[in-house]
């Protein structure tokens, strides 16, 4: 009796969310799948065409490669930042967190345009390097893979730092002290205790960044070179330039399946391990 009431109560609480999901996610997603199959004709030719399209293969590969590269770069930088933040006093940490969160609060379009000024041939970074090291040739950091990865690092960092940081802070400091009294050095403590314990945080950060990176659109368009086209840019190309909506929808469905798989893995990690966020 009690249990039934509880279920009904939970269902009532979830109802608004269900309506929102239905209206703004399931229905549009359904209509995209419908369009990708040429509506009522249920014609899978678009998918078959994509399988043999050199353009699609190329862009799919670029998307996965950029996604993995961006995630790895973000992991290395993000882990270092999280380690540093975890060791700060709460007051200092609160201040430093603002710097981590700033990119999260700024429009990605504005940031991408601003990167032109920061990373360009005559940009702040190149001028600083020229001033310190006196080299004449500017380092190419814009309109190539480096530009895309730096842009994505800036955008993804909070999504990596937050799960790792909360994990590191949840670790019992007594563990490290115990290891120290047993004679372990800092490197051994990190490799044998801190790192293995933080893996759930790392994994959820990695999966989150990977699914976000794979769906990027503005960053490769504004900061990348001609070979840095990603799936979202291809969707845009078919939607707006050629009005080939079945092709655009089919690519969107494939993108959804890829990120959906990643998110499914993410919930696995969360379910199997301690609460991360």
């Amino acid at each position, binding site marked *: 009796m009690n249990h039934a009431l509880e279920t009904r109560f939970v269902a009532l609480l979830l109802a608004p969310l269900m309506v929102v999901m239905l209206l703004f996610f399931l229905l549009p997603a359904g209509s995209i799948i419908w369009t990708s199959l040429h509506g009522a004709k249920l014609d899978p030719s678009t998918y078959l065409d994509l399988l043999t399209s*050199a*353009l699609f293969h*190329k*862009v799919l590969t*670029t998307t996965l490669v950029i996604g993995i590269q961006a995630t790895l770069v973000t992991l290395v930088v993000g882990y270092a930042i999280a380690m540093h933040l975890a060791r700060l006093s709460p007051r200092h940490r609160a201040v430093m967190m603002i710097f981590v969160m700033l990119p999260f609060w700024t429009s990605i379009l504005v940031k991408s*345009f601003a990167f*032109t*000024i920061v990373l*360009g*041939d*005559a940009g702040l970074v190149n001028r600083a390097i020229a001033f310190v090291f006196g080299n004449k040739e500017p380092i190419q950091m*814009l*309109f190539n893979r480096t530009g895309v990865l730096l842009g994505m690092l800036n955008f993804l960092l909070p999504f990596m730092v937050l799960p790792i940081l909360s994990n590191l802070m949840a670790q019992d400091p007594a563990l490290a002290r115990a290891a120290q009294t047993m004679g372990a050095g800092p490197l051994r403590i990190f490799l044998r205790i801190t790192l293995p314990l933080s893996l759930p945080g790392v994994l959820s950060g990695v999966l989150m960044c990977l699914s976000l990176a794979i769906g990027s659109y503005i960053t490769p*368009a*504004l900061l990348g*070179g*001609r*070979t840095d*086209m990603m799936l979202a840019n291809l969707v845009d*190309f078919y*939607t*707006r*330039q*050629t*009005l*080939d*909506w079945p092709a655009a929808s089919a690519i969107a469905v494939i993108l959804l399946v890829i990120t959906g798989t990643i998110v499914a893995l993410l919930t696995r990690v969360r379910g199997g391990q301690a609460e991360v966020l």
Partner: protein
Amino acid sequence: MTQDTKGTGTNGLNRRSLLIGASVALAAPLVITGRARADTTLTVTCWGGDYRAGVERCFAKPFTEATGIAVRLVDNADLARMKAQVESGRVEWDVFDSVGPQITAGAKDNLWEPVDTKIVDRSDLFAPGGPTYVGTYMFAGGLAFDPKRTPADKAPADFAAFWDVKTYPGRRGLRPRISETLEMALIASGVEPSKLYPLDVERGFAALDKIKPHIKKWIETTPQTVTLVTANELDFTYSYISRVRPAEIGGASIAISTKQTLNSLEYLAVPKGTPNREAAMRYVNFVLKPDRQTAFAEMLFFSPNSKAGLAAASPAARQYMPDLKNPANAVVNDEWWSDNYAKLQKRFTEWLLI
């Protein structure tokens, strides 16, 4: 029906117009209807920034004053959203303002109403457009550079010079769009601007292969064509007089060569199933009036599509309007592109990725 200026229902009586008609009839006693059709608000698409200000001042406001029909401008309208509106039968934009490839793609997809020749007078135009769309003005693309870094005699002034990387060393930018780019490549390879069409696609791609290693950025957004030169990221790029001149006047160190230009038409089209079809046609006709064409061209450095409008433009403004009688200048043929754009743009995008 088309002469009706006071009623609410025009052609194509459907549930929507019936509902609007009914509600207007119910509300009529409450509203003092001093002017004809004061209930109509036309929604017209435009491109933001200075362009929006120009449309507002030269077309929208005077049109409202002359007819009592309010005009609402919306920015960043794209064809995909227009198509979604027409296909779902909920048309919110009454007049669609866009470039050749988009307008002809829309015509192929059957998105536009036929031009109402009883309302729209096209007798005075250089390029009248097609059965479902009307040419409004020309915009000219040419080669932009920073006169401070590269003196005008050291910057490539025509497309052959742009392709000549030995005589004119520098970082170059082009658009990742096949129309205009293919024309430019063909002219650079020696094709007469007046004998471009039908385009020799293979020859064009061969010319593009030559310039490809020297292009630093394929510029996605039009504003970036200006900012990348002023930010010292590019030395020479394809851009538009209507973008470069305002930046130059605003104090930026940028200039554009008018020695050789590619001229494209901008069009207006009225989407199928709009509840304001007749008012929209009247707006299109208003835009074509010579005095409006002159006013718009003087403000934004476009070239009027109206012959009388061009004749009336001041010498100062005409200085920046490309002379179509000059054999170096070419006019982009949108009819040709309407059959070839989708296929060639796909090939071009693949070519860019290799």
